[in-house]
């Protein structure tokens, strides 16, 4: 079975041997009477790739977006519970929401580069943090473009609009842009769903490289992708967390009937 090819050296999170980065306790999210997220309690290990799996419409994206409080955009969403990042409750803390968001880069389902040049796309995050020196900016921009393996493709056309890039390049630009605000977490919402297979592979490869320095949380509904890169899996179904644990255990030794059905492909 191909799904078995997961890294075998996974230490179960329950043993508390890996430091936890994000800890969510009893998170509930309602829109009016619709209960979108039901009593979610999960933890995300530090410097690992955590994949949120589940069929469409089960609240994966909402869970991801509540992690950087993009849910604030919709005041009719009623969010209760606790989301702690490094033991700081971000849902209720007095800290500015922009500071919380600067700690997380976001990759969305399709790339949304900013309507400006490639150079300015990355400079934007640095500039709003108050870094304006040209020398510094140029150095950092080069650094982040190399980190997102985009430098060689765009080094001669930094002043061209970001919209002139291919969609795969745009997604890597968004990654570089996200890295430029110096986050420690990367949130990715099906980052490869709009991309061709080769660009998808590049993003996956990038994630595997980046996980040493960043905690990555990725939503996907592609099982194979999850099996390829996940260290830790959170499986959701109809707004509830059904199962969470190391990827190796999740794929080889699912504990619930729903998970088994999902892995067989009979739920979707």
């Amino acid at each position, binding site marked *: 079975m191909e799904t078995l090819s997961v890294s075998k050296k996974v230490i179960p999170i329950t043993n508390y041997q890996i430091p936890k980065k994000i800890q969510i306790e009893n998170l509930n999210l309602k829109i009016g009477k619709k209960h979108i997220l039901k009593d979610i309690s999960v933890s995300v290990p530090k410097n690992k790739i955590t994949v949120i799996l589940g069929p469409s419409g089960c609240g994966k994206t909402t869970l991801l977006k509540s992690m950087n409080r993009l849910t604030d955009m919709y005041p009719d969403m009623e969010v209760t519970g606790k989301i702690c990042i490094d033991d700081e409750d971000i849902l209720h803390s007095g800290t500015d929401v922009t500071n919380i968001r600067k700690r997380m880069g976001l990759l969305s389902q399709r790339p949304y580069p900013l*309507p400006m040049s490639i150079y300015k796309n990355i400079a*934007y995050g640095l500039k709003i943090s108050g870094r304006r020196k040209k020398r510094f900016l140029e150095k950092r921009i080069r650094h982040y473009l190399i980190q997102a393996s985009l430098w060689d493709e765009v080094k001669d056309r930094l002043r061209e609009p970001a919209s002139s890039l291919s969609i795969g390049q745009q997604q890597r630009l968004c990654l570089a842009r996200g890295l430029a605000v110096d986050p420690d977490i990367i949130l990715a919402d099906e980052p490869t769903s709009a991309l061709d297979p080769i660009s998808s592979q590049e993003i996956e490869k990038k994630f595997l490289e980046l996980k040493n320095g960043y905690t990555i949380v990725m939503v996907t509904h592609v099982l194979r992708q999850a099996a390829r890169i996940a260290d830790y899996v959170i499986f959701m179904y109809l707004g509830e967390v059904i199962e969470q644990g190391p990827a190796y255990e999740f794929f080889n030794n699912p504990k619930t009937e729903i998970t088994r059905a999902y892995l067989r492909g009979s739920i979707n």
Partner: protein
Amino acid sequence: MKRGSLNKYYLRKISLKAEEIFFRATMLFSSCIIIFILLLIIYSILQKGLPSLSIDMLTQTPKGGFYFGKEGGILNAIIGSIYLSLGATSLAFIIGLPVALFMNIWLSHKKKLVNSFRFILDLLWGIPSIVYGAFGFTVMIYFGIKASLIGGIVVVSLFILPIMIRAIDEGLKSSSVGLIEASYSLGSTKTETAFKVMMKQCLPCIITAVLLSFGRSIGDAASVLFTTGFTDHIPTSLTQPTATLPLSIFFQLSSPIPEVKSRAYAAALVLTVIILIISLSSRLFTIKYKKNRINF
């Protein structure tokens, strides 16, 4: 197949064909009429305006009264119109841009409120400009203000404000929520998102909105009739009455004196050329600034 049904089949085929030919012909006919009328208008403006157009016409104010005087040109109206439109467009832009941004970024979750606001703006867009003029006139009388450039600027900016807001709003509306989310997730505030990201994204739309409003304000006669008045002189302060091109056509065309009439034709030609330049430059600017726009 029965004979009857076969006949029916052919009949249907013929009637479909006839329908096709009929509608094609009517569409062609109406398009031709439109083009013909347009060409006729341009021809009559050119035919009557070109001979009366001269350096004097463009560089002199009317000598001895705009109605009777035989010498002089329409410089007062050209300058007055430009003053008025520039003033009104800038005022409408300063008010309109924040309103449009507010509707789409701060109120983005209150769809019903924003949509009813849009509806009201569309109603305002449809109100004839003479109503704005009359309204402005009433207010000016109440405050004891005489017909003046500032009065005209305020009333005309009220009149073009719905156009300005709705045109910018359409551009903002069509850009995706994903872009706002992307900007937020980089840690930008709402204000930064509005002015650094969304404004850039909608730059072509904003330019179109400004030029559209400018075109409307320079071409409108009714709203300035009571509010700016008419004069032979070039205004030197905001409180003086001001001549405008549309009114210069309106007043001078009714004159029995051919020289005065020719000034009206010249004014019509100048106005047409200004509006033509505006719409052409709006096209050019839109193309130029589209390059940064992210397509969804």
